[in-house]
């Protein structure tokens, strides 16, 4: 049986491999999704409770990562929803179909990502 640390190491390796992929490849990986329906699901199914309505990230038992403009490939995104590596709830197809996940993925990819902090004066105190 895998320990949490082993799982975490595997997850890190997956994430690193994913990060190495090009943006083009990620775009090609992602199925077409309905961002409007994804937004509805994101709010109704409670994704926002940990990750924020703007996809800015937040916290559950530990940090919940930012999702706006995520660079995670779709397969990794879906894998995290179906079989998370941390305390995130696992959403089976009883709650979210593959199509629903694709729609949510389209939504979070559509959210504005970070801006330059230098452009916001009060962040530079």
């Amino acid at each position: 049986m895998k320990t949490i640390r082993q799982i975490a190491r595997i997850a890190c390796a997956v994430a690193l491999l994913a990060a190495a992929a090009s943006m083009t490849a990620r775009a090609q990986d992602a199925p077409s999704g309905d961002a409007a329906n994804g937004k509805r699901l994101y709010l109704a199914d409670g994704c926002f409770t940990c990750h924020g309505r703007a996809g800015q990230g937040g916290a559950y038992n530990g940090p919940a990562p930012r999702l706006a403009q995520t660079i995670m490939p779709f397969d990794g995104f879906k894998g995290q929803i179906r079989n998370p590596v941390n305390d995130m709830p696992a959403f089976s197809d009883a709650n979210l179909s593959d199509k629903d996940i694709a729609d949510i993925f389209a939504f979070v990819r559509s959210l504005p990502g970070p801006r330059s902090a230098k452009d916001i004066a009060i962040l530079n105190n």
Partner: protein
Amino acid sequence: MSKCRQSSASSRRSFLKGAGLVGAAAAVAPPVAADAAPAAPQPDLKAALPGPTQTAVETLSPSNDPANQTSSGGDYMADVLNSLGIEYLAINCASSYRGLHEAVINHSNNKPEIITCVHEDIAVHMAQGYAKIEGKPMAMACHGVVGLQHATMAMYNAWCDRVPVLVFGGNIIEADKRAPGAEWLHSGVDIGQIVREFTKWDDQPASLTHFGESTVRAYKIATTPPMGPVFIALDAELQENPIPDPESLRIPKFAPVIPPQGDAGAIAEAAKMLIEAQNPIIVCDRVARTPAGMANLVTLAEALQCGVIDNAGRMNFPSRHPLNQSFRRALIGQADVILALEMNDLWGTLTHFSDRIVRRSAPATKSGAKLITLGSRDLFLKSNYQDFGRWQNIDLDIAGDAEASLPALTEAVKRLTDDAKRSAFDARGKKLAAAHLAMIEQSKTDATVGWDASPITTARMCAEVYAQIKNEDWSVVGTTIRLSWPHRLWDFTRPYQWNGSSGGAGVGYNLPASLGAALANKKHGRFTLAFGGDGDFMFNPGALWTAAHHQIPILYIVQNNRAYHQEYMYLIAMAARHGRDVTKMDIGTTLKDPNIDYATVARGMGVHGEGPITDPKDLGPALTRAIAAVKSGQPAVVDVVTDPR
């Protein structure tokens, strides 16, 4: 029987009626005018015959029972409190300690100053927040039965937080002295029993001498590390009645206990382990109990040039110090020697835990890493409540107060540091400093996401607040669950700029404890502010009235996510685990329909209120107005409707 009652009632009514008539006639009869028309014939008014009580008053000799006294036990009790330098006595008034209450007002001229609270939970939480800023306890008093039951949650928080609070509860020990009715309901054989599992000590003095000794002892026990709340039962007879032998009463002398330092040999061994380590790290929680604590920890960390991961139970380490690695917890897994100082949850800090169907845990430390602990927490534990946490294997376990022991440890480290080690340490410190700067820049970038969103992001909320208070002599004394932005973005440098959290995670702490901290800050002229959740706010909104009544300046920002949000998330996790509907988990976890208007609640208590603020552009001006109110000496609430986290 019925007839007798009627007859008796009739007689009494007749007596009152007659008396009333006489009285009324005397009061309202106009002056008799010379030309007044002749009056109609008047009935022959007669007062009823006096009843037995009236007859007794008029005919019997005065009672031998004394009606006045020239001394009271309460006076001595107030003197004892003042001898200990206790500044404030937070109370919700109650007849079982009316003797002490009156004595504090009249005998000692409202010293300790009475702080009127509308709930005992507020009074104890205020004392908890006060002690963490002022470095000494204040007192609270309540009914020993019904009031103490209200106070218990706050006492548990203080216990878990290792904070000294003096709690006094009125009682009537002798059964034959209790009046019928409520005094029986409000008396007990052992009223301290319900708080004994989360107090360091309690007693029920049976004489004034006993009271003096026990109160000074309680103070000493409460303020000796590991600190904690104590309880003293106040017998009403002792408080109210004359002092039997004033000449024999003495106030016991208090001498504070010098906190214990770790064993010299163990400290030397710890220094050797830290010096030899390639990647040592310090983890800490409640190190700083005086202003010297933070400085002592900085000196040690700089001597080693090692990272510090601060769980922020106190103001332990400056947030922007290059060695502050609190948001880089992966360093724990790289460390070969870990020095854990005054840790509350040591096992939890050093462990990965999975909140899944099968609850698994695994060390976050690397294999072979050595663990040194230094602290006083385990010197006093109790059995029932499990706040001591899970067992953690330790290689060198040093009993002693960390703050008091750090100078010796630092000196030992310096003695063992040669030039080669100094060079290696400096290189290590530079890497950590670079990582720290990168972490800050990353935090700033993270904070920009959703910057203009409504509900307002917590990052924007905190940035707007800091922009307006950063040039004040600020002290932030409360926060919401997992609100990390202040520690990620603000520049904490002074010992009073932070005072930790509830300790026991008992909801209802934040508003009154922040107010207690503000009370301590008031005389120092500091600008006190706190963030608090809406759920927490609703447990003790009455604290705002105390803030207004006593003019305690504080800027209180309600992070209004309209939910008990942690529970909301837990319910979604439960439904998802069970493969059931996740869309209805707002039932029982949210505070909406209707939304609560916290600014209006505040104004209703005489507190400046702003909000609810939903547009981030409105937040800055609202804060400006609220800060002006606070700087004029008032409390102010700003209701910010935020995204959940």
